[in-house]
């Protein structure tokens, strides 16, 4: 395990390995996305209270879960880069930020589009919505800070600290629906007892969640590979690859 971790830290090894995984991840993403969308839009029954509007859940919930998951990955990678000076960890953190921002944006906008017909408003300053908006600002702050510092190492360190401080927001988002009286509904899936949801509604949600996970893997690899190519531009293996 340690050897694998150590090898993964080598940019060339990462480039070769991720190249092998990429087509599989991409293919799985596509299949799961199409299957999940079909199941969610066509097969799943309408909700007895929310009618067909609830079908936004199959975009909104996976995107929102990913917005938190990507942030945890980004902060952990940042910490690893900060402590062990591992180059690949910096790359993972830096490439996760725009993807996390995209998921967060998607979660906010689809939530807003769901809120209008159900709550009668696109936006309220309640705990869940506001803390998720702060998450978007954290991602954008990370990207801005990185762009503002020329030296890659200094930028990675500064961004890692920012990401780690921002971790405090993650439990706030997660528990906001329990700690405060929010307009946002409580959790339907992650409950101690069984999910309060019909199986035909739940399965497409889980499929879409897997689809989003593989999508993140795919796009993270694509971005990280680019970053590796550019950072390693002076090494023999990159030069060899370019001339081919």
């Amino acid at each position, binding site marked *: 395990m340690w050897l694998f971790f150590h090898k993964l830290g080598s940019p060339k090894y990462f480039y070769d390995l991720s190249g092998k995984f990429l087509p599989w991840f991409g293919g799985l993403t596509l299949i799961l996305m199409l299957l999940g*969308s079909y199941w969610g839009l066509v097969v799943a029954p309408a909700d007895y209270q929310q009618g067909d509007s609830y079908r*936004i859940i199959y975009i909104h919930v996976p995107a929102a879960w990913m917005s938190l998951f990507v942030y945890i990955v980004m902060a952990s990678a940042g910490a690893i880069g900060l402590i062990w000076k591992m180059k690949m960890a910096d790359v993972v953190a830096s490439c996760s930020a725009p993807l996390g921002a995209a998921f967060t944006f998607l979660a906010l906008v689809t939530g807003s589009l769901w809120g209008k*017909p159900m709550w009668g408003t696109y936006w309220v300053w309640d705990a869940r919505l506001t803390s998720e908006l702060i998450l978007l600002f954290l991602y954008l702050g990370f990207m801005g800070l990185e762009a503002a510092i020329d030296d890659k190492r200094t930028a990675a360190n500064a961004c890692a600290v920012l990401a780690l401080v921002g971790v405090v927001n993650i439990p706030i988002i997660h528990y906001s629906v329990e700690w405060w009286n929010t307009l946002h509904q409580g959790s339907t899936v992650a409950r101690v007892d069984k999910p309060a949801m019909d199986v035909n509604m739940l399965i497409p949600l889980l499929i879409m969640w897997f689809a989003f996970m593989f999508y993140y893997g795919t796009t993270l690899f694509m971005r990280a*590979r680019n970053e590796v*190519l550019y950072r390693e*531009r002076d090494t023999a293996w990159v*030069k060899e690859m370019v*001339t081919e």
Partner: protein
Amino acid sequence: MTEFFHMGGYAFFVWTSYGLATIILIANVILPIQRKKEILNTLKRRLRREQS
């Protein structure tokens, strides 16, 4: 079929959500592909300059 696109009266909200998701997800695939082409072109040019 019309019923499907009508989405029980929520067509605008449901289809805008799915449309936007499609755009954002596809954009995040196209962007790194373009960036890769850009990087490879830059590196090729640099290498040719060094060799000449």
